[in-house]
């Protein structure tokens, strides 16, 4: 279809296979990858069969031993998370986080549209291993095709006895309920996801006490896992933890899906080897993005989704390894790299991200609800050339009210900056508030001159507070 050069409906474009080991994208090249027929023809549900052939606790151990890192952003090992549920409290639920909406992130939608049965199988393995008696698969509201494909796959799977009562004729029975959202980024946050699934406004709950594994859906122990995390399980059950950890590094085993967008020659989604692949490989490698567009210079890049503090070329040689990216001042987050070349208007770029988080604030806590919008207002004034130098300091002051103390940023030789390691402290309930500040802080720290060029020098006049 002419208006769809990136790939034709109904097939989601953007994926480049390459010849690397594949754990979650092995079927993507098949046009009919989402059908049960194709799935069964390609080891479909063999992982589940393998799992049901072993005691649940064995399966849980297998996942623990594989250290399957959460792919939703926090990177917490799935096996360990399953172990955090309080003893003897029933029922327990699985909630699948398919709300993918972190700026730059594009992988869960591919997994749901192109290989829904792999996700379903992953859910079943998780429920079996952790004793979860019902699964809710929460798909982002705007993803009509993903909902379509998962619904069809679930109907096929129920009919064929892969889901529901006595799965594969075993004593294992579990329902998977397809649930869909209605457009609110914050609902991707696990406690907000649960609120939303309970039919409420998607406002996050405070952790502690509301850690889902302890007090989740309907107040019951609840495991929330990301789509990609669960999609790893069928392969893992087929090939075992040893095979899984043989790929990548000890602390970051296996592969992970990464979406690279922005000013590169071949933006796309790649399943990369975890822990070893570097940002330089990804941005410049032939099997990956093949360099910056029009041979331009790389100016900056966001390494882990819109919430992540920015990197500059100085950080290109860091690998996809949390234990190195954190100290360097940012995070790997949700596997989303956004690339800005030399032509990029940095203040404007920061504004689009801040605007996003301000707009997506749930409104529950003061610093995010008021501070996010305040940052956006000041920043847009600055971008429009109507700002003053006092505004630049004010941006940092508002930031201080959202995230007290030193905010993480990368080192920079030119500017003589040394890195402030991730994470930050925050006055908010969840990360949306701080995320509104992250781009402002990164941009101001790494490219302050671009802001100063925009503003007029003036010292600001305080407005006295209400009631004085």
């Amino acid at each position, binding site marked *: 279809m002419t208006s769809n050069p990136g790939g034709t409906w109904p097939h989601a474009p953007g994926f480049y296979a390459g010849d690397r080991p594949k754990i979650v994208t092995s079927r993507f090249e098949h046009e009919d990858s989402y059908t049960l027929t194709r799935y069964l023809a390609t080891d479909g549900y063999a992982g589940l069969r393998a799992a049901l052939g072993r005691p649940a606790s064995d399966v849980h151990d297998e996942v623990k031993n594989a250290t399957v890192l959460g792919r939703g952003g926090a990177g917490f090992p799935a096996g360990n998370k399953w172990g955090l549920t309080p003893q003897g409290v029933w029922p327990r639920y699985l909630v699948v986080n398919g709300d993918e909406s972190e700026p730059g992130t594009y992988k869960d939608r591919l997994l749901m549209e192109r290989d829904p049965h792999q996700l379903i199988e992953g859910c079943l393995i998780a429920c079996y291993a952790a004793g979860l*008696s019902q699964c809710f698969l929460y798909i982002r509201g705007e993803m009509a095709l993903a909902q*379509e494909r998962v619904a069809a796959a679930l109907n096929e799977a*129920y009919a064929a006895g892969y889901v529901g009562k006595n799965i594969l004729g075993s004593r294992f029975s579990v329902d998977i309920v397809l649930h869909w959202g209605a457009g609110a980024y914050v609902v991707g946050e696990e406690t907000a996801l649960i609120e939303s699934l309970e039919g409420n406004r998607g406002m996050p709950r405070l952790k502690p006490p509301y850690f889902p594994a302890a007090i989740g859906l309907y107040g019951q122990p609840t495991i929330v896992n990301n789509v990609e995390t669960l999609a790893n399980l069928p392969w893992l059950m087929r090939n075992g933890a040893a095979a899984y950890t043989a790929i990548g590094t000890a602390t970051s085993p296996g592969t992970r899906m990464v979406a690279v967008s922005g000013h590169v020659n071949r933006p796309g989604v790649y399943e990369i080897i975890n822990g070893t692949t570097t940002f330089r490989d990804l941005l410049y490698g032939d099997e990956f993005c093949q360099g910056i567009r029009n041979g331009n210079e790389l100016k900056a890049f966001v390494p882990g989704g819109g919430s992540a503090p920015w990197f500059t070329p100085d950080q290109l040689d860091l690998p996809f390894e949390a234990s190195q990216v954190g100290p360097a001042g940012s995070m790997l987050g949700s596997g989303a790299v956004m690339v800005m070349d030399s032509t990029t208007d940095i203040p404007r770029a920061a504004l689009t991200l801040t605007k996003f988080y301000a707009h997506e604030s749930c409104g529950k806590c003061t610093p995010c609800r008021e501070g996010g919008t305040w940052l956006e207002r000041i920043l847009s004034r600055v971008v429009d050339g109507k700002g003053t130098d006092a505004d630049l300091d004010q941006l940092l002051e508002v930031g201080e009210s959202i995230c007290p103390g030193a905010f993480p940023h990368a080192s920079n030789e030119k500017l003589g900056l040394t890195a402030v390691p991730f994470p930050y402290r925050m006055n908010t309930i969840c990360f949306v508030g701080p995320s509104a500040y992250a781009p402002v802080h990164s941009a101001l720290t790494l490219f302050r001159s671009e802001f100063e060029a925009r503003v007029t020098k003036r010292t600001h006049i305080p407005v006295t507070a209400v009631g004085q």
Partner: protein
Amino acid sequence: MARLNEENLRLAREIIGRYPKPRSATIPLLHLAQEQDGHVTKEAMAHIGELVGATSAEVYGTASFYEMFKFEPVGRYLINICGTMSCALMGAEELMHHAEETLGVHIGGTTSDGMFTLERAECQAACTEAPCLQVNYRYRFRVTPQNFDDLVDQLRSGQLSDEIPQHGTLAVTRQHIPADKGVGAVDPELVTEGPAWLDGKAAL
């Protein structure tokens, strides 16, 4: 009309039945209402409240939190142009200006013929295919001004009506759990014991 019709009421009851607590069906039911009327009416919200055991105020509180629910009629085709980082870097602003000119409305506006409503949307998880947009939540990728005009013509001429149903309809395939295959939802308060398969033996 306005309240859920017979068929949708049947669907609503089926959906409610899948959850341990009826309230959980609120958002799916709101989608059902929007699919029926193109937007969510007051009567539908009151009806949904009755069905899930919430007050109208609570249903409205939930509904108004979410971007996708419209409380006023919108065009047959809701065009959401993504304006977040990756798309912005790849010319989303320009595309929006072009769209405003082509349709003769500003962002947020609806064309006088009621065909199109134009909105600026946040990240659509297609960042590698920027700039992108959705028409009634069906994607278009790497959209150039030319692509946009073609798209509008195709929509006007009805060529895409199979692929893109009127605003409110998401997946056309619905989940259905056959009575004999489903486990069924149980109110957590009635559950006291862990699942049978946790007995240290293999389930198969």
